[in-house]
């Protein structure tokens, strides 16, 4: 039984077919990567899964429930968290606040909670969120930055904060959109270990990444997208030698 399944999913923007008839399934507990040249539609797939776009055709199942067309906040509450390709942090808030907001779905007190701030119920709610937030920061080794403003973090730490924030959602499925982009080799190595630890906690990971070394070193399954169409899927070794993949990346003729 797959955790996430896309069945014949297509989306059109005006006349442009950005994703065409994609079938994909992510098994629980695996690290699944989605690769492909620039503009292949990888981020679009993430936006389809998280409800930012609605597919023109096809269905998306999460935990065997159909989720296509549902609102992003609804999908997050079901257990899918994500990071963004071009970092979307809450820049003028502190690191801690960023992660506390990530923990949003675990809390229950809203406007009335603000009125009843010092009652035991609201306080225990807040404690729970704080605990979750600190746990996520610990996982991404950011606990010494809690009071910094997100915008003041160096780039690599901003990427890690995005993951910490997504972890605070307590997701079953974590979508990472180019998590290693802009990192130096050492940072990438550290990140790779962190991702493995996250998987070790039972969180399934679906990631988009350009860095082949990163992808090959971490993935159980790799799917390849080109011009919105899935052209290959399999284990690292199969993908590495697949002529279609080589052609997509290097152009026709490169195989020979």
């Amino acid at each position, binding site marked *: 039984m797959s955790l996430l399944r896309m069945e014949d999913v297509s989306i059109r*923007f005006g006349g442009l077919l950005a994703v065409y008839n994609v079938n994909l399934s992510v098994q629980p507990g695996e690290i699944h990567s989605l690769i492909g040249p620039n503009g292949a539609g990888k*981020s679009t797939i993430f*936006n389809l899964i998280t409800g*930012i776009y609605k597919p023109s055709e096809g269905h998306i199942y999460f935990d065997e429930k159909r989720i296509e067309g549902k609102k992003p906040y609804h999908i997050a509450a079901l257990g899918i968290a994500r990071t*963004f*390709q*071009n970092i979307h942090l809450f820049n003028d808030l502190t690191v801690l606040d960023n992660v506390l907001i990530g923990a949003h779905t675990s809390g229950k007190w809203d406007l009335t909670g603000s009125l009843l701030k010092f009652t035991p119920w609201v306080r225990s709610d807040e404690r729970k969120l704080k605990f979750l937030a600190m746990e996520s920061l610990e996982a991404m080794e950011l606990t010494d930055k809690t009071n910094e403003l997100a915008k003041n973090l160096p780039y690599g730490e901003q990427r890690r904060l995005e993951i910490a924030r997504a972890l605070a959602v307590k997701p079953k499925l974590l979508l990472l959109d180019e998590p290693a982009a802009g990192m130096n080799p050492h940072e990438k190595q550290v990140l790779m270990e962190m991702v493995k630890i996250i998987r070790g906690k039972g969180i399934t990971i679906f990631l988009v990444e350009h860095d082949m070394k990163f992808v090959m070193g971490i993935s159980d399954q790799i799917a390849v997208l080109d011009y919105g169409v899935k052209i290959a899927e399999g284990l690292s070794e199969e993908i590495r030698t697949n002529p279609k993949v080589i052609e997509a990346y290097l152009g026709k003729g490169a195989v020979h």
Partner: protein
Amino acid sequence: MLLQQLINGITLGSTYALIALGYTMVYGIIALINFAHGEIFMAGAFAGLFMVTVLKINIFLSLILSMVFCMIMGVVIERIAYRPLRKSSRLSALISAIGVSIFLSTLALMVFGADAKGFPDNTIPLIQIKLGPAEISSLQLLILGISAFLMMALEFIVRKTKIGKAMRATSQDYHTASLMGVNVNRVISVTFALGSSLAAAGGVLVGILYNSVSFNMGLMAGLKAFAAAVLGGIGSIPGAMFGGIFLGVAEVMGVAAGYSSYRDAIAFAILVLVLLIKPTGLFGQKIQKKV
């Protein structure tokens, strides 16, 4: 009857359109709701009035001089009140614009007093021309003619000249345009100059049409013209022309239908309705948000 209202409506609407163009051009380039624009319109009306009554200058020359006056004024205001804020939050620039607006209307109040002033009766010889069942006055014809001429001139500048090309490029993408060697500061100055001169023309024409010029005429006219710009799709020049004329006709029709006490609400009711159905205005383009 209907034709008569249509003529009156289009006449009023074309003055709204003249003001709306300034809003839409400025917004298109620096994404600022220039709340002081209504006061430029007022200043234009007073400048025209001053030249006709005190300096005894011919009305057409006065119109041109008033346009030049407001052109300079618009450029100076941008230099002092908006340019230093270009990198700040857009709300700061908005508040600055409101500050300019308060300053200018108070200045007009102090210089010209609280009473509305009128142009001399013989400014434009009034002749009524029969048009089937309706009448069009020489004044209305003049307003329509001047507005049409100015809008065509603007269209020519924006479409056919080098600076117009730079303006279009800057409104498409401010940063890329500056990287491509467009002198953005100059483009912005020209935008303010053009927009302000059109508002000045609108001010003089409205002043003659209603025979009334007052320090607080800018606020409501400015708000309605801004509504017209948004209605047409802010940033779109044809949109502003259409929006202005549409609101002018709607307002005149509404008054004719007996809703004169709701006069000032008509424009806004239409605006809100259109926004709810098409959130970017009639001719506005939908921007795909990059995620």
